[in-house]
Structure formats: C-alpha cells, structure tokens
C-alpha cells in the first residue's frame, strides 16, 4: 500500500520540512516576513537613492485600501482556482467511473 503512495508521502514530508524550516527561521528575531516584492522595491530605492514613495505608477491602478481587502481578494483568487480544479477533477473522475 505504501509503495503506491510514494508521491503522497513525499509531498507530506516536503510540507513538514517546509513548516519546520519556517518555525526555525521565525524563532530567530529580526524577520518580519514581508513580501519579497516589497523587499525588492526597497532595494531599488536603495540603489537609486530615491525613496520608495517617489516611484509613482506610470499607469493609474486600483490599490486595495487595506490589508484585509487585499487578503479577501487573494483568497478569492485561490478560491476560483480551487473551484475549477475540484470541478474538473470531479468531471474526469466521473467520466472514468462511467467508462469502467
């Protein structure tokens, strides 16, 4: 049974390893876990000597007014993906069962 589930086991181990890594890193002080996009933007400002705020959009864009709203929109993005994946895996599974 277990030899048929190699990939599942590997995924579980990889996930556990990832979580342990996170716990170890987050136990050390000085990590704020901000987005690497923002860290990249700070590096740009450091290299150019212009503050981050001085980079204004070339094309006006919608900015989520708060972290909560941003989180909602990200959850929405993941949910849309999840629904599509679940729907079609179900569809494939149903087709397969009918064929057998």
């Amino acid at each position, binding site marked *: *049974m277990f*030899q*048929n589930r*190699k*990939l*599942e086991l*590997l*995924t579980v181990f*990889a*996930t556990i390893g*990832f979580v342990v*890594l*996170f716990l170890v*890193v*987050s136990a*050390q002080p*000085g*990590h*704020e*876990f*901000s*987005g*690497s*996009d923002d*860290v*990249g*933007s700070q*590096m*740009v400002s450091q*290299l*150019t000597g212009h503050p981050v705020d001085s*980079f*204004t*959009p*070339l*094309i006006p*864009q*919608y*900015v*989520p007014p708060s972290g909560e709203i*941003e989180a909602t*929109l*990200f*959850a929405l*993005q*993941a949910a*849309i*993906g*999840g629904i*599509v*994946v679940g729907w*079609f*895996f179900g*569809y*494939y*599974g149903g*087709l*397969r069962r009918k064929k057998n």
Partner: protein
Amino acid sequence: MHIMEGFLPWQWAVFWWLIALPFVIMGVIELRSVLRKDREYLPLLAVCGAFIFILSSLKLPSVTGSCSHPTGTGLSLISFGVFITAVTGGIVLLFQALFLAHGGLSTLGANMDSMAIGGPIAGYALYRLLKNTSVNMFLTVFLVSAVADFVTYIITSLQLALAYPAQVGGVMTSFTAFLSIFAVTQIPLSILEGVLLALVFKYIVQLKPEIIERLGVFSREQIAGAQMPRDPVSPVKV
C-alpha cells in the same frame, strides 16, 4: 516576483512588453487551434490555469525571513507548451495587476516575461531534454516545475538589475543584490511547488492518461511504466 507599478522606467516597460507580445499572440493562436482540434483539452487547460491561480496567490514564508509565492506554471507548460502558458500565466498576472496592485499594467510585460514566458522556456527546455530518457515521468515534472519557478525569479532579478545598475559595479552588482532577495527566498518554494505539481500530475495521469498521451506529453510506454500498480484511487488498465 512582481515588479511593482512604477518601478520600471517607461523605456524598459515598453521593451519588456515588446518581448512579451509575440508570445501572447502566438499563444492565443495556438490556444484556438488546440481547442478547435478537441474540446476535451479544455478541462485540462482549465486545471493547468487554475493551478497558476492558486499557487501564485499563496505567499509563503521562506528562509530569508521574507515571503514569496510559487508560480504554478509547470503543469501548463508541460501539457501545452510555452506559448499557451504565456496566455494562462498572463491572465493571472493581469488579474493581480488589476485587483491586487501586485505588479501593474506598465510592468505587466516584464512580469509576463519572467513568470509566464522566461521561466516556462527554461522549464520546457529541461522537459525536452528529459522527455525521451529513462528519467521517471514524475521526477521530470518535479524538476521542470521547480526550474520554471526558480528561473522566473532569476529573470525578475535581471530585469531590475538592468533597469537599476549599481553606481559601483554596475549591472552585475545589482543583479547579485536582487538575486539575494528573490532567488534565495525561492529555493525552498520551488522545491515544494515541484513536489506538489508532480503529485497533481500523477492524479491527472490516473484519471486521463489518454489526454496526456494524445497531447504527446509523454509516450504510452512512459505513462504505463510510471503508473503505480493497484492504486486504490483508480485502477488504470493500459
């Protein structure tokens, strides 16, 4: 890996857009011809696109103490190739630029070049290299997905370095600086993404081996050889 709106001078924004556009146009053409050939490809295409949606929305913590997200482009590029992935990945990036202020319309070209085109090209090259060897099919998917993810961030670093060379040391110095932010953060994430997409690919092969064979992704023998016998989810008779 998003380059934020306004963080590329307009000359560079236009330059990266010009590189991205032919891929997107080719992708749309290819997409139409693939779907015209067989509507049964549509569900697989939707699943591939959906995984880009899901994975690129997950911002995960990493060893550098900052967060980044996987790209999820591996499935799409293995199943449908580079051009169609430019479209599926481009749609996700457009969504994030319009609603989430992650990346912007002027930097969309550059962001497509890294996530939806450049990373996938590297992954696809590796896939072609491994396809007809004895390397296990799932190992191939793992490596290809991880490489597509990782190279995406190398390209982002390069794009920023070209636009912002350091006063001392020029492009190479700032390339190293951006790599230390993006690439190092991405190592554990790309490994995790590779494992996950290999697992998803296993389920696709279990449920629909014929579609993977018909698309020419892997040969019948490879699919039969990689299948794990008497799997309780769904026994596949080949």
